[in-house]
């Protein structure tokens, strides 16, 4: 064992954290959080170098990103993995602009938004009932505007393998009630939202869109994000079914309703 003079000698020449090689600092940082890594970049030049190192961000970037890059509408250029990470946090349009992809900065979890075109809308191609056009405040080139229907049924699905594993997600319909000309038919009309997971389990809720719109207006207006349901991605257990299905419908009372904009459906990792 070490005697006291050996220990004194060792402590006199005690090495400081600054004397660790950069790759060791990077390894240390890899065991902290992404937020910590970014804050610690400001400790010293050594820390900045370690915190910006490609090997670190390589571990953080989900593998799915590399399959996504060739599908981007605008080519994603980057001179470091860190730069790639934050570019993806800003969100990119993929698949000819029909979907949006992003990463949550503090967790590196994957988020998607499907445009209205990616959804199955009953009677959606009938120009008497639905109109497709562009709006300044849309995330996509086109969105769907409900003119008038009795049978409202909007469905969609996503392959859960595209998402982050072992992650809690929420499915949100991004909607807005039209002001001019005014929307109609939504008062006291519960709309049924549901999310079905690959194992067949279904979560459903009935919500009043005018209530959701009022809540949104109170915090400054803009698009409503109506929660259709939640699910948790699991490591693929069987090869049969990995689709998460979601639906917004009103097919019971079937009264006439109109004046609803659908920008799309967001599949968003839940904030922890």
């Amino acid at each position, binding site marked *: 064992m*070490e005697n006291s003079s050996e220990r004194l000698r060792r402590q006199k020449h005690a090495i400081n954290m600054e004397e*660790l090689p950069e790759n060791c600092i990077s390894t240390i940082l890899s*065991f902290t959080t992404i937020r910590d890594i970014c804050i610690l970049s*400001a400790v*010293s*030049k050594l820390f900045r170098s370690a915190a910006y190192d490609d090997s670190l961000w390589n571990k953080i970037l989900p593998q799915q990103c590399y399959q996504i890059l060739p599908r981007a509408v605008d080519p994603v250029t980057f001179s470091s993995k860190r730069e790639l990470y934050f570019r993806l946090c800003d969100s990119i349009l993929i698949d000819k602009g029909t979907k949006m992809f992003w990463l949550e900065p503090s967790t590196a979890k994957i988020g998607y938004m499907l445009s209205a075109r990616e959804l199955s809308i009953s009677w959606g191609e009938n120009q008497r009932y639905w109109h497709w056009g562009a709006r300044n405040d849309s995330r996509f080139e086109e969105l769907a505007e409900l003119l008038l229907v009795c049978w409202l049924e909007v469905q969609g699905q996503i392959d859960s393998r595209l998402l982050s594993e072992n992650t809690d997600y929420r499915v949100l319909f991004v909607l807005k009630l039209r002001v001019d000309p005014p929307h109609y038919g939504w008062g006291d009309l519960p709309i049924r939202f549901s999310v079905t997971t690959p194992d067949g389990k279904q979560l459903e809720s009935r919500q009043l869109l005018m209530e959701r719109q009022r809540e949104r207006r109170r915090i400054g207006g803009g698009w409503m994000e109506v929660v259709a349901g939640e699910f948790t991605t699991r490591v693929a257990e069987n090869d049969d079914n990995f689709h998460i299905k979601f639906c917004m419908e009103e097919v019971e009372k079937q009264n006439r309703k109109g004046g609803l904009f659908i920008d799309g459906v967001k599949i968003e990792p839940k904030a922890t």
Partner: protein
Amino acid sequence: MASGSKVTLKSSDDEFFDVTEAVALECGAIKNMIEDIGISSPILLPHVSRKIRSKVIQYCKYHVESQKPGVSEDEIKSRDQEFVKVDQAMLFELILAANYVNNQKLLDLTCQIVADMIKGKTLEEIHNTFNIKNDFTPEEEEEIRHENQWAFE
């Protein structure tokens, strides 16, 4: 080579130390040297002092033993935790040594301990606790804070 073969290691203070080949092979750098030059001559480790070398060897021995059946994950974990109950200076020396001899498990273990110490601390706390000098100019620091704005909010 016979599984009980002995490998001789020589540390910076000129001390010789024998270990089994299995223990020596836990360290990537030593493994490479053995593959290149065999085990008939001592393996030189000039950057590792006797004290640190013996700690590293202790760790390697634990891990060779823990690969035998009947050793639980919990036992390994609690042994690891006891192993790293050392002062800060020793911890950094272990990191340097693990890096030098390329023992990834030991490197990860020791780096995790330091990471737990720095997680959630403010910059000022880091500078003070670890006696690290902020060598940025005010403009450079401002630039980094700006580049990482989201984290500081």
